[in-house]
């Protein structure tokens, strides 16, 4: 279907109108297919019809309506470069943003969001309290990954970041510490941050990142450091 579209002033009306019209109706046909695709409810087909067709349609518009096919190579290089850069950008950034865990890190907030799902403002009846589904990691693993940076794996307050602070975190194995702490306070600090009880704002609240269940588990874990009387 290669048309030789003349660029000079004298138009060849019959030939050209047919060509543009043909492209236009092809585009419309493709639109219909892409809308119909999802009705088959097969994911792979939907993706092909939706995005594959989008690429085909875009190509038709670019080559024929924009006349890129008749244009000098320079213009094609300019556009190709910009597209390649977008691929590069995606490749470089997606490793951090698209994934929710790597070898040494985990994006808890994103994982929690996936678990929570989207709350529909039009849910029938009462909007139920959204329950977190427990993330399948042990408390110990989470404590060592998240908390131990400051508090140390043994709860001594000797984590790498903790020792660098002007006022290091308290030693959980010190009986003196426990004279003024109980379960309620520990729960409060983990949920809302130490500033809520007049402590350092460096200990943030974790209610957005962990379920209430997991926070209770953390509190139990901390209480386990308490020395036997």
């Amino acid at each position, binding site marked *: 279907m290669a048309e030789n579209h003349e660029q000079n*002033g004298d138009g060849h009306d019959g030939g050209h109108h047919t060509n543009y019209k043909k492209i236009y109706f092809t585009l419309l046909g493709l639109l219909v297919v892409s809308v119909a695709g999802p009705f088959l409810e097969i994911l792979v087909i939907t993706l092909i019809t939706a995005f594959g067709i989008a690429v085909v349609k875009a190509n038709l518009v670019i080559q024929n309506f924009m006349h890129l096919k008749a244009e000098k190579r320079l213009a094609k290089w300019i556009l190709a*470069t*910009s597209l390649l*850069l977008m691929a*590069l*950008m995606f490749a*470089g*950034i997606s*490793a*951090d*943003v698209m*994934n929710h865990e*790597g*070898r*040494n*890190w985990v*994006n808890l*907030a*994103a994982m929690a*969001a996936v678990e929570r799902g989207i709350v529909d403002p039009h849910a029938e009846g009462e909007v139920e309290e959204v329950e977190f589904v427990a993330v399948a990691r042990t408390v110990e693993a989470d404590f060592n990954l998240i908390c131990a940076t400051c508090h140390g794996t043994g709860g001594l307050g000797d984590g790498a970041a903790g020792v660098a602070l002007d006022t290091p975190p308290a030693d959980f194995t010190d009986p003196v510490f426990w004279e003024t702490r109980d379960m309620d306070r520990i729960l409060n600090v983990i949920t809302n941050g130490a500033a809520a009880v007049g402590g350092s704002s460096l200990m943030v609240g974790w209610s*957005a*990142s962990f379920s209430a269940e997991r926070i209770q588990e953390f509190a139990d874990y901390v209480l386990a450091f308490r020395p036997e009387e």
Partner: protein
Amino acid sequence: MADTAVATEHVDHHAGEHHGPQGFLKYIWSTDHKMIAMQYLFTGMFMAVIGGYMAYVFRMQLAFPGISVPGFGQVSPGEYNALVTNHGSIMIFWVAMPVLIAAFGNFLIPLMIGADDMVFPRINRLSYQIFLISALLLLASLFVQGGGFGGAWTAYPPLSAVGDYNQTAIASSMWLAAVALEFVAFLLGGINFITTLMNARAPGMKAYDIPLVCWMIVIASILFMLSVGPLIAGAAMLFLDQTVGTGFYDPARGGDPVLWQHLFWFFGHPEVYVVLLPAIGITIDIVATFSRKKVFGYKLMLYTTVATGVLSFFVWAHHQFIAGIDPRMANVFMVTTLLISVPIAELLFVIIATLYGGSIRLKTPMLWALAFIAEFLIGGVTGIFLGASGADIYFHDTYFVLAHFHYTFFPIAIIGTFAAFTYWFPKMFGKMMNDTLGKIHFWGTIIPFNFIFIPLFVLGIGGQHRRIYNYEHFPDLSSAGQYQLRQVATIALLVMLAFQLVFFYNCIMSWWKGKAAGKNPWEANTLEWTTESPPPHGNWPEGLPNVYRGPYEYSHPDREEDYWPQNEPD
């Protein structure tokens, strides 16, 4: 209908008909590329004074904590943050880019390719107007409630996104809007420059006959255009986070702050090459003229520059080595970062090789060009330490980084500007600058410059972190020796600022009473020196030139003269 390579050289239909606006309007409504260049130049230099003032204030605070700084007062922590943020933003976006690219690009490109103006003069004027609005918006942001934006020029969220955190909610949105407008201005300008260079060349001027400074400015414009897109998208998202309360960068709402970092630096790294390339172009052109020698490798420089440009898109995450990115990506970016030092070093080697064996004339512009090479080299090699991701764990966010980028940015933005300004002043204003005063200004800038930043290297290696308004809060960083270094740096800055008065005096006296320059006081080859100083509207009213040879035909063996202008027929 627009046609192909027909050069309509009969400029006489302009004569007597269209001279552009007259009188006062000429200075604010002209579409002449030379006038627009002046507008960018003066706006950029004005902003440089403001940025320099900010540096003065915060350096006084750092050297003498708690002092009531003369001409400002006591510096509060919030004000300190606003000063460093706006100092950085102003110097990059409102000084380096407008002066090196917009001012000199506008002035030089049409002249150097033998054209009568840019191809889109009205869009040219529009881009300056948008730029001016962006500058005014930024300056206005300094005076609103809460003060100027204090989230660093890198504006990382959540600090930059949440007014409660940065305490400068109004200014943070104004700053962002100002930056976005500046981007739009440079996108428009860039299209003008690129299209003009590609299409509007004089008959006979092949691609390799274009002076390198023009290539550099245009390649820089291309780099800018292709890299700024994702940041414009990211800035729109940040603006919405700031104003409407979306959560693009808020983890609790499903967003990711690291996304901003990536979008910012995907642009931010090519951006440094956007400003570097014009400075290198200015340097090589000056070196060729004042060595009376061809450029050692014109095509080598051109292709190396293109390679640098391409590679510059592959290094961005070296700014994020310890931000929590995937360590495997860090390895990739380390390799590419160390690699990019090779083509840049090569560019400097070509400049040095051009000097070798030349008949050197040590006029003021040449001194600035030589200083560029020396100082930028120091900046470049210190970058290698930072490119090694392991070493960067220690160096990141210390003054080592700061000294590194000042040893690169200062040569680019300040030395490059003075080199270009002293070289093309005769063409722009028709008068010669006083060379003795120029040399005094030169030494009074360069020597103090080193005394500012070498102490900062030492402090950085010693662990001094950036963006801290008072080191008295950190016992490890408040020793007497460290304070002495800070004071040396600050006093050196005061000396350097004082010597800038010599420059301003020289400018004004030369413009007023300087010796008439004539067409070609430096005996240079490129086309801008073949017309009057300053060039009239239309540049060559008697007819646009044709080109017969390359731009660096100095000391040609068959000639008696040691230069051979491009427009002289064989």
